[in-house]
């Protein structure tokens, strides 16, 4: 079974990927970590960034399990203020 998740990119990650977001069709039961691995295999430059992730607009641990239509965001450490 497949599911769809939306991945959003911010800051340096967006520059590397060249897009604001993309939709991925992945195996059911995938975790945040699996999405990151997928992205790194497609965009090896991402390996140079300390990656932080969120799920549905909240910080998410790497082993967080994803569901259909979840929104995952990937970004470098924040630097506001």
């Amino acid at each position, binding site marked *: 079974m497949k599911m769809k998740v939306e991945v*959003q990119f*911010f*800051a340096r990650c*967006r520059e590397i990927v060249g897009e604001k977001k993309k939709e991925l069709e992945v195996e059911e039961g995938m975790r945040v970590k699996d999405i990151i691995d997928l992205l790194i295999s497609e965009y090896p430059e991402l390996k140079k960034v300390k990656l932080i992730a969120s799920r549905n607009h*909240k910080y998410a641990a790497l082993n967080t399990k994803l569901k259909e239509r979840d929104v995952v*965001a990937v970004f*470098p450490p924040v630097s*506001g*203020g």
Partner: protein
Amino acid sequence: MITEEDFSMDELVKKLKKPEMGAIVTFLGVVRDEGIRGMEVDVYDEMADEELAKLERDALEKFEVEAVEIVHRKGSLKVGENIVVILVGAKHRKDAFMACEYLIDELKERVPIWKKELEEKSAQN
């Protein structure tokens, strides 16, 4: 609140004030001249709004303060322009100072906002 517009401290203070406040401490972050032209501020809006709201609730729980307000700008900002303002109103000043320092420290740790320095004009030639 995340906004592209600049803000007025006078208006924000006026909105924040309550009769039980004796002290209002504010932190204003501005674009500092480090040989840059300015800054591009990138924000993950939905998440930043939630994190800011959470931060404000945190401060109200952790400290003896009456009200808290945070405004962070996004977009292109020139040297000297305002980036962020944090206002804390409390009965007593020590609580206002503590909460205000806590808020800017935590904001820099938690809220998904990124600043990117824009190179000086001369460097573009």
